[in-house]
């Protein structure tokens, strides 16, 4: 605790009425916290840490290991997805020397490299091998596969960006950065394959519109920022692609 910053508060308290007599700030906050949870209208997480947990979910943990396991989980999902693509007739029907096949092969390699990297880096702290559920994806259909790929890649980018704030070790932030830009390259290419020039679009990037055709730099609406997502939101989507027993929570990352 700091010891020398009390005088402004003491001064102000002295001017106040009895109602505003100084109380221990800790007590005030505990009181306020209690009120927040006791007012009938439920606030997410108050009073019961388990309120918004998925039943029997695997929690990714806290601190840097939590973020790394969170990333590991998403990379496992992506790696399993691209591995399964190779079993469908969409992929097997592609000419062996076609660009689309080469692209999917590259993506499969990159995502497996990411997943295996996290597994090794985490060592005994790693969460278990997850069991995916891709039953909603038709691996025999180009549109179904590429739209799923787009969803996974966009989700990955939003997830890394939204989890950056929970990383404590600078070198780990750099590692996450090294991966997220590759995911963004994937996402942009898959989107361009599905609809040319959709590499950025308003569903994933808060597009900027100049006020007029002659506007100077920075004059207009929007930001040009990726729409990052926090872990709880990401996992709601990711859990749709995981079997019971492999569903995830990230209760410490919020």
């Amino acid at each position, binding site marked *: 605790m700091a010891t020398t*910053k009390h005088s402004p*508060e003491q001064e102000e*308290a002295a001017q106040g009425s009895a109602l505003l007599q*100084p109380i221990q700030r*800790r007590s*005030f*906050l505990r009181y*306020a*916290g209690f*009120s*927040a*949870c006791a*007012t*009938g*209208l439920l*606030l*997410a997480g108050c009073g019961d840490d388990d309120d918004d947990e998925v039943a029997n979910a695997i929690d990714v943990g806290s601190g840097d290991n939590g973020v790394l396991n969170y990333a590991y989980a998403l990379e496992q999902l992506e790696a399993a997805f691209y*591995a399964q693509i190779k079993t469908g007739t969409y992929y097997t029907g592609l000419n062996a020397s*076609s660009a689309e096949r080469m*692209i999917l092969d*590259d993506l499969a*390699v*990159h995502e497996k*490299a990411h997943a295996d*990297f996290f597994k090794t*880096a985490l060592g005994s702290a790693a969460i278990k091998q997850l069991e995916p559920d891709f039953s909603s994806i038709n691996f025999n259909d180009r549109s179904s596969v590429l739209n799923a790929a787009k969803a996974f890649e966009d989700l990955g980018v939003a997830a*890394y*960006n*939204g989890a950056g*704030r929970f990383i404590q070790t600078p*070198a780990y*932030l*750099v*590692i996450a*950065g*090294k*991966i*997220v*830009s590759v995911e*963004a*390259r*994937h996402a*942009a*290419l898959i989107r361009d*394959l599905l609809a*040319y*020039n959709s590499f*950025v679009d308003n569903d994933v990037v808060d*597009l900027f*519109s100049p006020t007029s055709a002659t506007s*100077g*730099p*920075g*004059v*207009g609406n929007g*930001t*040009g*920022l*990726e729409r*990052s997502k926090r872990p709880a939101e990401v996992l709601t989507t990711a859990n749709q692609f995981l079997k019971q027993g492999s569903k995830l929570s990230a209760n410490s990352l919020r």
Partner: protein
Amino acid sequence: MDLFKLISEIEKVDPEVYDRFDSRRRVFKHFGTMGKAVTAATLPALFSGLFTRAYGQTGTLPAEIAAVLNLALQLEYLEFYFYDTGLKSANLIPAAERPGIEKIRNDESGHIKVLRGALGSQAFSQTDPPVTAFDYTGGGRFPDVFTNQATYFGVAQGFVDTGVRAYKGGAPVLMPNKDLLEAALNIHSVEARHSSHIRSIRRGSPGAMPDMNNLNQKPKSWISGTDNGGSAPPTTTPIYGPGTPATGGATDIFFPAESNITQAGVNIQTNTTGVAITVAGASESFDEPLDANTVKSIARLFRAPGNTVLFA
């Protein structure tokens, strides 16, 4: 929002947390700004405001954070005017590519707005630098940059790839300010999306085959090795090469070349199982950061002669 847990967690990392809150009177005054009774529905917003007051930016950014943001801002101007000038140049950008390049130009404009908003009076200049502050021929290296499509998109690739590496290298400095960090990450990934698109254009289309023997002509959407030095070796070679320092321990920050295949002490090629992975594949799986000084030395090629403000 579990306040008990939140406060006790904050107390662990910031023993002065209680001193950061205003007096009880000021807390009530803050609550009073809602102008109505405090209800459960309004509490989260109130507490969020309270924490913003306790930890929010109160004026000046630390010098090292301002330096990272100012370099980023200058790179965004470099890019904005490059795309804006390209769009205004007759017979340069094909009709099919204009919507994409307009989006990229607009994204950069948005990034300028965001960075200026964060920097305020600490921006390197309170007015926009003019387009004439830049020399897109790179001191005569690319004399046909605004008349030759191949040159234009080649230089564009150099700019976006430099930008991605620059943001990645600057990110750790922003860690004390989580909101600024997240904003920078949200720019960083958009720059990577741009890079992917520019590389698709250079290849001929998203679904065109790269030429693995000549990646500086037909690159992949990701960086393979050092991409043969990029679109215009040797000028663009530093964009894919190492920065300073180029080596370091598992938890150090260092700046290897894009061809690096070892991450946090793990050899990505030997560590990856179940798929056939080449050295190129191991390098493509991870982008690399670049340090500010190396970024500046690359960018200085594109500032007008006599300009000493940009990329200083």
